């Protein structure tokens, strides 16, 4: 029983990342009609916003300590972060410790700007081109972006820990009279994604801007005829989608040390999530994200793998095939989306 509950929690956690990325993908597809294969790269850039802030906060000056030697036998240069020198070791240390949550503030403007530049600078030139062209250009962009990140940060994963107060495990089982633990930061990640998903849905549901965007998603031409500059709003939505992917990346860094390839690792799965959820359906993307996350976790259980070896590697695709055979438009797909 403990094992099943743990896998459900794991699945919700994985599903959180899938759902956030798939949500952004669907927003872009639903508004601009673009299949954005660079969306995984946005997730990766978000993660590297956290890495960058961590490095900025760790900018240090050096004191020569004659009593210690470096690897060449010279006097050791001891590094002290400027932040600790300015604010004292305790408060300065706390700022460095909280680098990942602080990176949220740092990442939002950067990701929106990256989204704007990406959309205005490249993707808008491909609106009228076939989906295959859009896929090729955005996939190429993703490769270029990850190579840029690798050039500056190297290929190896970079440790980006969670704040001390939010590391370790919580006895989640005690809430239901059982005894099992779960990492605190993973719980934080799940609730964070729920808040972001809730905020996006509220924004679209309860604001005038959101209402116009939804109207544009349903009938772009009519909204345009009403004198509304729907393209501008869609560009803003691209920026918001980029920010969502970026925030998902920032908060993911303590779970797995980020590397330049992490976006690609999520990209394919997130596209499967979008297709299973139904192209253009925001609730579908979220539902499919969590569902596939949970199924993937269960498929990794030894009991399941002993019955069907290797199922953990193909479960998502098997489920996708079954769903598309029975519901060709996905779980919550609408008629007419990506249908000639």
């Amino acid at each position, binding site marked *: 029983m*403990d094992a099943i509950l743990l896998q459900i929690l794991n699945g919700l956690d994985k599903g959180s990342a899938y759902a956030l990325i798939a949500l952004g993908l669907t927003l872009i597809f639903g508004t601009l009609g673009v299949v954005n294969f660079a969306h995984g790269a946005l997730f990766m850039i978000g993660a590297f916003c956290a890495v960058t802030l961590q490095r900025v906060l760790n900018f240090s000056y050096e004191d020569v300590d004659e009593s210690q030697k470096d*690897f060449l036998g010279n006097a050791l240069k001891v590094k002290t972060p400027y932040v600790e020198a300015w604010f004292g070791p305790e408060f300065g240390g706390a700022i460095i410790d909280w680098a990942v949550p602080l990176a949220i503030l740092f990442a939002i403007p950067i990701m929106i700007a990256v989204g704007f530049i990406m959309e205005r600078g490249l993707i808008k030139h491909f609106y009228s081109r076939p989906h295959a062209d859009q896929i090729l250009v955005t996939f190429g962009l993703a490769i270029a972006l990850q190579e840029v990140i*690798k050039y500056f940060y190297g290929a190896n994963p970079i*440790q980006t820990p969670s704040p001390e107060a939010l590391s370790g495990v919580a006895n989640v089982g005690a809430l239901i009279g059982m005894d099992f633990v779960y990492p605190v930061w993973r719980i934080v990640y799940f609730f964070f994604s729920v808040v972001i998903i809730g905020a996006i849905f509220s924004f679209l549901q309860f604001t005038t801007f959101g209402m116009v965007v939804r109207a544009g998603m349903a009938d772009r031409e009519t909204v345009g005829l009403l004198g509304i500059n729907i393209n501008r709003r869609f560009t803003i939505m691209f920026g918001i989608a980029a920010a969502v992917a970026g925030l998902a990346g920032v908060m993911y860094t303590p779970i*797995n*040390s980020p*590397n330049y*390839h992490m976006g690609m690792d999520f990209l394919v799965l997130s596209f499967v999530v979008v297709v299973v959820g139904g192209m253009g359906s925001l609730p579908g993307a979220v539902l499919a994200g969590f569902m596939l996350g949970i199924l993937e976790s269960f498929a990794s259980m030894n009991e399941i793998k002993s019955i069907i070896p290797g199922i953990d590697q193909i479960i998502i695709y098997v489920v996708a095939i079954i769903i598309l055979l029975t519901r060709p438009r996905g779980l919550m797909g609408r008629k007419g989306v990506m249908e000639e």
Partner: protein
Amino acid sequence: MSKSAFSRRGVLKSGALAGTGLALPTIFTASSAAAFTNDPTGSSVTLGFNVPQTGPYADEGADELRAYKLAVEHLNGGGDGGMMNTFSSKALQGNGILGKEVKYVTGDTQTKSDAARASAKSMIEKDGAVMITGGSSSGVAIAVQGLCQEAGVIFMAGLTHSNDTTGKDKKANGFRHFFNGYMSAAALAPVLKNLYGTDRNAYHLTADYTWGWTQEESIAAATEAMGWTTVNKVRTPLASTDFSSYIAPVLNSGADVLVLNHYGGNMVNSLTNAVQFGLREKVVNGKNFEIVVPLYSRLMAKGAGANVKGIHGSTNWHWSLQDEGSQAFVRSFGTKYGFPPSQAAHTVYCQTLLYADAVQRAGSFNPCAVGEALEDYEFDGLGNGKTLYRGDDHQCFKDVLVVRGKENPTSEFDLLEVVEVTPAAQVTYPVDHPMFAGGALGSCNPGS
């Protein structure tokens, strides 16, 4: 007047052609008897450095490339000479190899077997490389080793730790300086026994490819031999990034030791996940839960950060060693690049010197002569103590380091500390050991 069908000119022409035709086979036979693939005839010789310059092991590849360039500099008489000064063989004079200036070409393996083979093929066929070296993955090393055997050039393997490289997939033209999974297990087991006792239940998570399989087989056999029980062996896809769903079942498995047969990004992520799930604070069967990483790399330890503290593993070499050879190499590399070399850099530097030395001693670049010079060759002064290049399988036998993640590092490089230097005799195995069975070395191929 009758006209003869044979003119003087015609007879001469026919005779010349027939003579040339008859002589041709002899020319070719004589030539091929002496020649071998890419016999360097000019004033220089080209070596092929085939390393991952893109892909997940690009940092290891970059460090390997730095070491190769340093080795070339030293072979050509530049720099401070590095480990050439401490190497027990004094055949190398700092004037290249056999008086020929050493040049090199580089290729990108991308940590993919097909790309690595294509890159090696291009270096052999287009650039005239007489030796290929490199690799940061056993799959790649085995693939390139096979190609070099077919092409008739020597392959000096870089970072490859699978038993199969010098086991079932060994080749006469291939040589490995790096240690292997069996040696890691043989070095680690006694240390683990002293630290954690003989009554332990181990749970293995293993990368699902050649290196992972042989590493798991080796460490499971070594720990079982000292009394440990293997609770479970779970294979994880190489492409995995989040290991939480593989770690969660460990919590209630009854295991009190987790063995992570992972390397690279897999190791960083699985170790991070294991620590996140509180395994290090867990007490099972009245014992503290322990994590073991059989193959450590400093570059990877950096990725795992504080999670490596106190965790034991093995490594081929570490920059903190105090022998003359290691210190000379660290000084040379550190002065040139500003940071200490990794074990990947060390092994490829050694391989380059060992190849050059073998050519020098053999007096020829012919792969068969070079192979003969390397086989059963004993040397010292390259940072691992006395070392033997065993002729039967082309595997180096030398001391193995057992290391531990350092609790209080003094710098970003000071991540591992050596807890034991396991003597070569303790990690040596017979040629016909079952874990290495299944393949034949064959005979050397000089090519063309």
